[in-house]
């Protein structure tokens, strides 16, 4: 063994190198305040290691980026942990950078002859921010996509060269496959490679000029090994423990919270995500920009941040003046306090915005839905976005909010959870066609309420009069009959939610169908039901609430099968091309509760 080491040492000189590395002098003894550089290096190594592992499973294209990250996060062994470490270590790096910078400035470690050391450090800081910006987009989820679009647009607003720079970085006029391949090349190749080179220079310069001891030096010098190494190791372990804690901490508050880094819904260029925000450590810039509207924007996005960075670069030279060090300390303090204040304002503003809260909530819901659908069905070649675009549960509420909620409600809201300012002027469609919904419309106390006919011209019509006068006087036997009629009509819809009841109550339903026609119940006077009636004046109840019935109704409620000339304001969405056939079926399936639901968790394949 010794001969082998001798041979190696003879060829490489590793013993001397190790000795130099380990027995660097630490003037004044080891100290906790010297650990920041080591923890930063450690965090960077974590990023390189976990990033390399992630590269084994990541696929950069608009049809596979979200999909492969979904697969890492939810299907691959330990993927959530790996991705969680990569995500939170990136945040730890930002914090550690700030601490390292503070320690260097406070201790005056940037002064001559260590100017270059300081400058390489600041360049690396900017590169780490670049890593963060590029990494944010790679999962190709809604928040990364829209936040990156903002950054790209800001870059594009730079005079003269902006548009060209933007086009080169995103690989075209708009975000696409090449945005991802380019961001990945920058994120996993260019920047880490340059940082490695600069770390070598940075550490070489650090060793050349030695550590800047905290004054006054009270204790004897020691060697780097083992005293300072031990402190560094403990600090690195603490950083790691914090990262691991952040990965699992959501579970402390809710037992089924997702572990690790968040993955939003797949990026959808047609679906503005109004809760798009940059990572928390860029929030101060985001907030800063708000104070520079219109043609002043460039000041907030480029000029002032560049001037401040310029001052930071000049710190070693400013530090040479008599009051230079105090100026630098003041500058750093001002930047930190300013950033903290702006970050607070950004959060405070969002907290008071109901639209932001709602958008965040919807984003979580649609992210969960995308994952559920991917698990349930596998992802088609066209990508995960297709799953959401063809999903009634995702699209139904949006179509409803856009096209129906100006008159209708769904469980009191507009489908998406917001309450429109105008009062409802048509029925609430939650549970449309169900036993409960029909029982409500036949209830004298409810029929003219705003969630049924209250807002329509039918509130003074025959049906309301019938319910309020005749049904109100029904005796127990008649009420029993009416209940069977309700069962029969609601069975027409064939709702998933009532499948159990419909197959159980076949006798009562048969009875209800017969009772519908008897003159005492009066239904058949106006309505047609399961047999042709030329004189019918009210909507045909054959197949009431079924998929076909509802699609036809939404397409053309003024058709003589439905309201005919009596139709009250409802547009013929299909006939007038206000909604496409696809949108009408998605809306119908959503109202009817027809969407893919998760199998029991046990049967979901790992």
């Amino acid at each position, binding site marked *: 063994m010794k001969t082998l080491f001798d041979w190696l040492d003879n060829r490489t000189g590793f013993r001397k190198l190790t000795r130099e590395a380990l027995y660097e002098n630490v003037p004044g003894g080891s100290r906790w305040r010297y650990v920041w550089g080591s923890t930063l290096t*450690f965090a960077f*190594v*974590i990023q390189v*290691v*976990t990033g*390399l*592992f992630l590269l*084994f*499973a990541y696929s950069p294209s608009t049809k*596979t980026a979200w*999909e*492969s990250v*979904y*697969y*890492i996060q939810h*299907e*691959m*062994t*330990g*993927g959530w*942990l*790996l991705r969680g*470490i990569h995500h939170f*270590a990136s945040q730890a790096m930002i914090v550690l950078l700030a601490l390292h910078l503070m320690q260097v400035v406070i201790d005056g470690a940037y002064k001559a002859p260590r100017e270059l050391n300081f400058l390489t450090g600041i360049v690396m800081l900017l590169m780490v921010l670049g890593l963060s910006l590029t990494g944010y987009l790679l999962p190709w989820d809604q928040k990364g996509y829209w936040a990156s679009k903002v950054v790209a647009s800001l870059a594009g607003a730079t005079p003269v060269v902006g548009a060209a720079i933007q086009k080169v970085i995103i690989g075209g006029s708009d975000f696409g496959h090449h945005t991802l391949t380019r961001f990945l090349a920058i994120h996993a190749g260019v920047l880490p490679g340059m940082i490695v080179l600069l770390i070598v220079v940075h550490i070489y310069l650090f060793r050349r000029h030695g550590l800047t001891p905290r004054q006054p030096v009270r204790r*004897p010098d*020691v*060697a780097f*090994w*083992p*005293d300072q*190494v*031990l402190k*560094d*190791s*403990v600090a*690195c*372990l603490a*950083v*790691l423990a914090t990262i*691991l804690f952040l990965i699992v901490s959501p579970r402390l508050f809710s037992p089924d919270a997702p572990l690790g880094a968040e993955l939003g819904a797949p990026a959808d260029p047609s679906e503005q995500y109004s809760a798009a925000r940059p990572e928390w450590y860029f929030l101060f810039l985001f907030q800063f920009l708000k104070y520079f509207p219109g043609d002043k924007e460039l000041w907030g996005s480029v000029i002032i941040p560049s001037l401040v960075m310029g001052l930071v670069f000049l710190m070693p030279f400013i530090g040479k003046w008599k009051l230079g060090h105090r100026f630098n300390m003041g500058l750093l303090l001002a930047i930190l306090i300013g950033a903290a204040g702006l970050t607070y304002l950004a959060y405070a503003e969002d907290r008071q915005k109901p639209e932001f809260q709602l958008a965040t909530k919807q984003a979580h819901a649609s992210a969960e839905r995308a994952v559920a659908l*991917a698990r349930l*069905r*596998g*992802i*088609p*070649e066209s990508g*995960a976005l297709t799953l959401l675009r063809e999903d009634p549960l995702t699209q139904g509420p949006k179509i409803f909010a856009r096209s129906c909620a100006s008159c209708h409600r769904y469980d009191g809201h507009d489908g998406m959870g917001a309450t429109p300012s105008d009062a409802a002027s048509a029925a609430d469609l939650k549970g449309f066609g169900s036993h409960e919904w029909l029982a409500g419309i036949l209830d004298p106390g409810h029929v003219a309420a705003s969630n049924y006919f209250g807002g329509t011209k039918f509130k003074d019509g025959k049906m309301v009069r019938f319910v309020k006068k005749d049904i109100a006087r029904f005796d127990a036997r008649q009420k029993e009959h009416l209940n069977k009629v309700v069962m029969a009509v609601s069975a027409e819809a064939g709702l998933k939610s009532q499948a159990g009841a419909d197959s159980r109550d076949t006798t009562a339903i048969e009875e209800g169908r017969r009772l519908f026609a008897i003159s005492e119940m009066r239904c058949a006077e106006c309505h047609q039901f399961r047999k042709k009636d030329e004189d019918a004046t009210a909507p045909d109840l054959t197949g009431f609430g079924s998929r076909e019935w509802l699609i036809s109704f939404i397409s053309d409620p003024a058709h003589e099968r439905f309201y005919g000339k009596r139709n009250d304001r409802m547009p013929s969405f299909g006939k007038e091309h206000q909604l496409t056939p696809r949108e009408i079926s998605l809306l119908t399936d959503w109202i009817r509760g027809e969407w893919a639901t998760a199998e029991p968790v046990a049967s979901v394949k790992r």
Partner: protein
Amino acid sequence: MDSPPDTPNPDRREFFKKASAVVLGGIAAAVPIGAGVPLLLDPLGRRDTAGAAVHVVNIDSLPVDGTPRKFTILASRKDAWNRYDDAPIGAVYLRRLEGGKVQALNVSCPHAGCFVDYASASRTFLCPCHNSLFHLDGTLAQKSSPSPRGMDSLEVEVRKGSEVWVKFQNFQAGHATKMARA
């Protein structure tokens, strides 16, 4: 390196420091690596499930003289996150035998997985990569063949007197025995 003189057992103290530094640093370095290895080895835990039998063709389409014909097998397939319906998952040679029976051979060469060609002049199967030669029934046609075994036969069934159903499966190449690919 010198410890203050008032410290008891300076050697033990120093050793403790060194050991702690190595252990703690080692743990810190091991965790990110440890988190990645399971993902790297993830494929080992996944099985290539042999699909159910698929209806490939009707027996009337196969030449009566026993000349083999090649057919692509379409089936639903999962590739990591993607699911494909009716995607090509491989190909078979089907050959009509005496008595209304059919022979099915996987077209992959058991040597290195190249697709084997049918040489009509010699009525043999010839692999274009390393010249492995097979008889029509799939057995080896050379004394020393690059291929360690004959072509892989597949389960085949003629249903309703005419429908040819094949249970398609891939086998591990490069071994003398036919083993299902895990």
